């Protein structure tokens, strides 16, 4: 029973933080409504931040689809590294406990990714000019 109470009180700071976040958001909206006279509008007021350069094109410029392709491939191979780090750190201990299977698991994983890499290169996914 004591343990249960202890665990519940552990979550109190999180609850407080949620309350503060909600309170801040609400009060910010309320204060800007009251002080900023939000109902009064004019052209200057409707520009972004009421300062800076006047925008002369749309807010979302068009990107070449190649960016997305490269970004996706980057994430794939980045995750591979993230996965390999902890594996490399515990490798020495783990190989004593589990034997060679821990090596072959990673080997097959990297092997599949290598096939994917070869496929991506052959398909011209990294070929910027075409």
């Amino acid at each position: 029973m004591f343990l249960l109470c202890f665990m519940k009180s552990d979550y109190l700071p999180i609850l407080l933080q949620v309350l503060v976040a909600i309170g801040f958001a609400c009060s910010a909206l309320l204060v800007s409504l009251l002080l900023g006279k939000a109902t009064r509008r004019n052209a200057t007021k409707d520009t972004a931040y009421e300062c800076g350069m006047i925008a002369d094109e749309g807010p979302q410029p068009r990107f070449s689809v190649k960016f997305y392709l490269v970004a996706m491939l980057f994430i794939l191979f980045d995750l591979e590294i993230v996965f390999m780090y902890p594996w490399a750190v515990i490798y020495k201990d783990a190989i004593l406990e589990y034997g060679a299977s821990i090596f072959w698991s990673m080997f097959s994983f990297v092997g599949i990714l290598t096939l994917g890499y070869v496929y991506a290169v052959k398909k011209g996914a990294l070929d910027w000019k075409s």
Partner: protein
Amino acid sequence: MFPPITLEILVLALGFILLLAESFSQSTSKRSLAKSAVFCLAWIFALSFFVTSAPANPEPGSFWNFYSADPVSMVFKRIALLTTMAVLVMALEYEKVLAKNIPSAREGAGTGEFFILPLFTCSGLMLLASAVDLVMAFAALELVTISFYVMVAYMRGSHASLEAGVKYLILGALSTGFFVYGITWIFGLTGETHFTKIALKLASLQGSDTAILFALVLVLVGLGFKVAAVPFQSWVPDVYQGAPTPVTAFLSVGSKAAGFLLLLRVLEPFLGVASIAHKILLVLSVLAGATLIFGNLAALPQNNLKRLLAYSSVGHAGYLLMAVACVGVAPSALGSVGATVGFYLFAYLLMTLLSFLVLTIATQHTKGEEIQHFNGLSKRSPFLAFALLVAMSSLAGVPLTAGFYGKFLVFAQAVNASQWTLIALGTVTVGAGFYFYLRVVAAMYWAEPADASPIQVSGLSKMIIVLLVAGIFVFGVNPKPVLSAFQTQQTPLASAH
């Protein structure tokens, strides 16, 4: 003799080899890819009869804690292999439509993967059939779903296909979220991911009924999306209509089979908790009733054959859920429900693949998927019209077809479980089914064709169609081989014991 996991590894390896072959080859025709895939899958199918069985008591920490190879999962694996072969043959027929809808500089570029991606789905289905651990089941289910995401949106020149892809991706990801959240709740409650161990822990948990129900409902929502149960069916019509036809066929068969297999596996530990078992059955009955009504009544006004088959897929999910809702609390009842669901899925697979195969071939000549485009098909190709007649009769449940026997088994289960409301609903919706399925038949046989040029069918497709028609009749008259395959002492439900 070799371990059963070899089959999945072979299918995956075949996929990788074909992907590399596709990327290295200069040939513009990709038909040889599909043909070699079908050929190799046939060999893997033959090999599946020569695998060793799983050890009875796997040692802790070994691979067998995630993977079982009981007879029922082997049957599911073989079905997955056969389905993939049929889908690949369908994809061959669909090649021209595909090439037209994929804008590319080079002829045939970008169509090759369409014949290779089904292999990855197939390996996912095979792994799922053997999964006895939630983590393994989830990984396999994702392998199935993610390859479907790509295949549904494959025709990037077609707005309908892209729309279907986006809808399927967003709703599929949402349902996956529910499913994973459910798994974390189950893990939080029991500290286990293996089905048998979950069952043991759940049975001994006291006073956390609400939490257990919440976990199960989350899982049910996730799987409800996969099997297209109401109220999680909203993605079905648009995705089925927009996706390339072979993918629609694979989706309606594969996604549903995977969902129901997993549903039965996940339900089992929960039904062991006596205090909530009746609540679970009530939830399932409500789902089944709603799915039956919506699927069959919404199909009535449909004029597009693909959309009609989509609603019919929802309707059939209703009959399957009806069987699942008849799971008694006694463990002995689980076995027969597993066999009923297995047989129904098998019959559904035969008739769905047959209708989509005919649809794929016929629509290239009729220039449309509306029912009116099938007017007078019997004069243009008596063979195709007869095949579609058999498929539609079986879907409606005309006696002597496999579809009839499947429905018969479902209703027998419902009578045994005294689910009178569901029986009444089921009877009404079967009647509705006769109207909308046979409307297609009427159009084919009693309407005059706009264009009477005959339709040619290629040899490979002809063979598959003949086999499917034969299957529908043979297993409709003599269902015993299939039933006993699903009943061999271990059902999908009991396999976790």
